[in-house]
């Protein structure tokens, strides 16, 4: 029921009482609109329900409503309905753009100022779909950030739509760009690694370490070491490892292991690390 002015001794009908009750309970029959609409004084105390497949507006002007008046606004159409400040102000902590099935109460604090208390419908607009998803926001709407790869960390990046992205965990304050340790004898196996996609075995004591992501510069510091089983290292079992100067690249690094007799030889374990400031 729209806002009424009653007189002393006036008798209300059952229909009027029912309508008043519905209004008092926050409901009542809505006044349906199918196109953009400008509120009028008679809308005070009523429910304005927009139902349009296209975008619409509900405009709020001054000198129509008194302090304490309110208008419920609902949008049941597929088009976004935007509450628009005409000559009156409309303040909100939420959004004035109502998607389908959203609504709220426009409450007037004076004849020229109003506050829109939007109703957040829990879960109804969640973009989340998968375990681990993050609820984020773009510049204009809520958004889903899919769960990242195991071990990745979340970092801020203003170039991303949501301002966030997953990336491989930083190691050693980002100075270590890649490292790995692998068997140089027996059944080949990589024991551990970071930013290394594979090891190429080119032959006895000849390995190429291939990086998952390119290193920004080939001027990195490489840390090389080998191990050899068999007790105390002797003239016959000693090993040394060197990088091939012409194959120090941003995508891979080739290393050779030599025996103390200066011949290519296998080591039991080969360790390679790359550091770049």
């Amino acid at each position: 029921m729209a806002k009424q002015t009653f007189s002393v001794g006036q008798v209300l009908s059952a229909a009027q009482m029912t309508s008043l009750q519905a209004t008092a309970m926050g409901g009542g029959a809505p006044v349906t609109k199918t196109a953009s609409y400008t509120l009028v004084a008679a809308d005070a105390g009523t429910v304005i329900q927009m139902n349009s497949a296209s975008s619409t507006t509900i405009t709020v002007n001054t000198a129509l409503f008194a302090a304490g008046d309110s208008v419920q606004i609902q949008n049941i159409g597929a088009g976004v309905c935007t509450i628009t400040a005409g000559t009156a102000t409309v303040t909100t902590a939420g959004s004035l753009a109502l998607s389908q099935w959203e609504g709220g109460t426009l409450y007037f604090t004076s004849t020229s100022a109003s506050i829109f208390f939007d109703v957040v419908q829990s879960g109804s607009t969640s973009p989340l779909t998968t375990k681990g998803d993050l609820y984020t926001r773009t510049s204009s709407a809520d958004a889903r950030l899919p769960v990242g790869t195991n071990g990745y960390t979340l970092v801020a990046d203003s170039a991303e739509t949501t301002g966030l992205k997953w990336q491989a965990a930083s190691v050693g304050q980002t100075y270590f760009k890649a490292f790995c340790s692998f068997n140089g004898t027996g059944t080949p196996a990589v024991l551990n690694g970071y930013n290394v996609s594979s090891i190429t075995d080119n032959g006895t004591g000849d390995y190429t370490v291939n990086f998952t992501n390119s290193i920004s510069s080939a001027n990195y510091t490489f840390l090389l070491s080998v191990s050899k089983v068999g007790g105390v290292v002797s003239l016959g079992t000693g090993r040394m490892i060197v990088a091939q100067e012409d194959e120090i690249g941003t995508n891979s690094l080739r290393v050779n292991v030599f025996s103390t007799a200066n011949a290519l030889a296998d080591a039991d374990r080969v360790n390679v690390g790359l550091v770049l400031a």
Partner: protein
Amino acid sequence: MSKIIVYTGKNDKLIYVLPATNDLTIEEIAEKDVPENTPYHIIEATDLPSDRTYRDAWIWNNGVVIDENKKLEIDNAIENKINTKAALLERLGITEDEARLLLA
């Protein structure tokens, strides 16, 4: 079972690529780390010989096999090296058998 990628390099030597990450499939690693336009095979790592003595004689022939000619070259090279050293030691009064013991 872990899989590896094998292909043939210069002088028919078998080269293999050992994956080091679970973030890429073995096909993606092959695409990235095998030289362009090089045919390759994906096999089990355990299909490689566990003894690497003749690593440089490994070739691909419907599987990883040891090329007998290359194996002979490796054996000859080892023998020549031992003989050369043994001859030098013999000049110092050490017998060939003693030299072989020293170099074993």
